[in-house]
């Protein structure tokens, strides 16, 4: 369960989030769409305090933190409720694939090494990298690195996994392999918040779509509502610009 109340954030007096209120239920898959500069990544990063909101309340799982009075201890326990998959993967460069996945288990979950190893091997198998245990991140393709990033997040068994444009840095031909892994875990009932530009993926995977612009949530609804019958002019403009022919192909797909 995620609960955000009146989240505000400015960078150099420039407001980026202007009071976001949001509730996300357990097992829900929510994607955030919006033009660049709309505050969607900042919102995601406020969920684990990689950005500290200026104002408002963040709750993930049982941990509630008031931004203004957040202590180090509170921030740490809030972070331990979530895991993040980064746009640029951010795998630990000096650790092997297996060690990357094990790291969180050993350090924050206090697993024994053998246990962490067994668990991590299973997860790597799941993201299709069972044969890459001893590779270093720099020896992998972007798509493979991102799948390690997903396994690292899954290992923590968090309340929610946050995806920050997980395919934006990938070569087009590698996007598919990452999206299919994310789809597979979405079906397992893990709560996910995804910032993405992949419209057809968002349509397919989400329970709910948020459209953000200018630091506010302009519109939200089911993928069908947002993509087929957006109520707000700004949403319509954005969708038109991003995927002029998307709704057509969506309708065609449904017709077939």
């Amino acid at each position, binding site marked *: 369960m995620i609960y955000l109340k009146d989240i505000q954030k400015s960078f150099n007096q420039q407001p980026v989030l202007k009071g976001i209120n949001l509730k996300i239920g357990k097992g829900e898959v929510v994607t955030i769409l919006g033009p660049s500069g709309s505050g969607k990544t900042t919102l995601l990063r406020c969920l*684990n305090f*990689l950005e500290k909101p200026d104002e408002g309340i963040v709750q993930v799982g049982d941990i509630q933190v008031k931004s203004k009075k957040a202590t*180090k201890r509170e921030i*740490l326990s809030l*972070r*331990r409720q*979530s*895991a*993040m998959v*980064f746009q*640029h993967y*951010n*795998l*630990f*460069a*000096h650790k*092997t694939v297996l060690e990357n996945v094990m*790291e*969180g288990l050993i*350090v*924050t979950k206090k697993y024994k090494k053998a246990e962490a190893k067994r668990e991590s091997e299973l997860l790597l198998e799941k993201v299709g990298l069972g044969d890459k245990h001893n590779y*270093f*991140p*720099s*020896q992998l393709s972007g798509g493979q690195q991102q799948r390690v990033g997903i396994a*690292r*997040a899954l290992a*923590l068994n968090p309340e929610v996994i*946050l995806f920050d444009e997980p395919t934006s840095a990938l070569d087009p031909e590698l996007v598919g392999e990452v999206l299919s892994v994310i789809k597979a875990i979405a079906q397992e009932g893990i709560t996910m918040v995804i910032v993405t530009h992949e419209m057809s993926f968002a349509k397919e995977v989400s329970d709910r779509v948020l459209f953000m612009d200018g630091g506010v949530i302009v519109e939200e609804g089911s993928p069908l509502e947002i993509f087929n019958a957006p109520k707000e002019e700004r949403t319509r403009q954005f969708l038109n610009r991003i995927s002029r022919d998307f709704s057509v192909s969506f309708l065609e797909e449904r017709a077939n």
Partner: protein
Amino acid sequence: MGKAFDPSLIVDFIPTLIYYLGVTLQILAASVLLGMVIGIAAAILRLFRIPVLNQLVILYISFIRGTPILIQLFLVFYGLPAILLFINIDISRMDALYFVIITYALSNGAHFAEIFRGAIKAVDYGQTEAAYSVGMNNSQSFFRIVLPQAIRIAFPNIANSIIGSLKDTSLAFTIGVMDMMGRGETLIAATAHALEVYLSLAVIYYAVVLVFEKIFRLYENRINRHQTVDVSVTG
């Protein structure tokens, strides 16, 4: 000038001098290890801008960089006993070797601090964010994720610094330490064959530096094995 140049003496001198290589390496090892501890601590104080200590570290580093090591050696040799005498500790009879180690540790510490500070800042901040995202606290993220990568970045400079430090130990004889150089000075006094002694010393120091460079290069390749692009700097 001493006696006529006799190259065959070099063959005799080298074994005599090399016997004292142990002392040189002892000074080097102790001062590098202590220097690492000082360097990492000083770098942390600077990076986290700990009030007062940060300014003291800046002063310390600037002083070490701005003064010749020979003068630092004399300042420690004469100054440290004088200061400690104020609190009734008499170290005037302490082995000169320890003064050398203290001086070189302080000198290495200042150089290492700047190298580490640069290296730590060079580690991508995304690594820290990833560490936070898996639930690490500040010190876990620093010691498990950032520092190991910083050491890899710092290593070529540290290696150069250690080699410089090895050569600097040749000044230890000035306060009476019997290392290779010190033994060389006594050989000159006894034989008056200065050139042969210095040539012998040059051969030994050069050989040791070559061995060090080889070891450093091997180690560097090892710690860089996760890098696709091989960065190789030493010597």
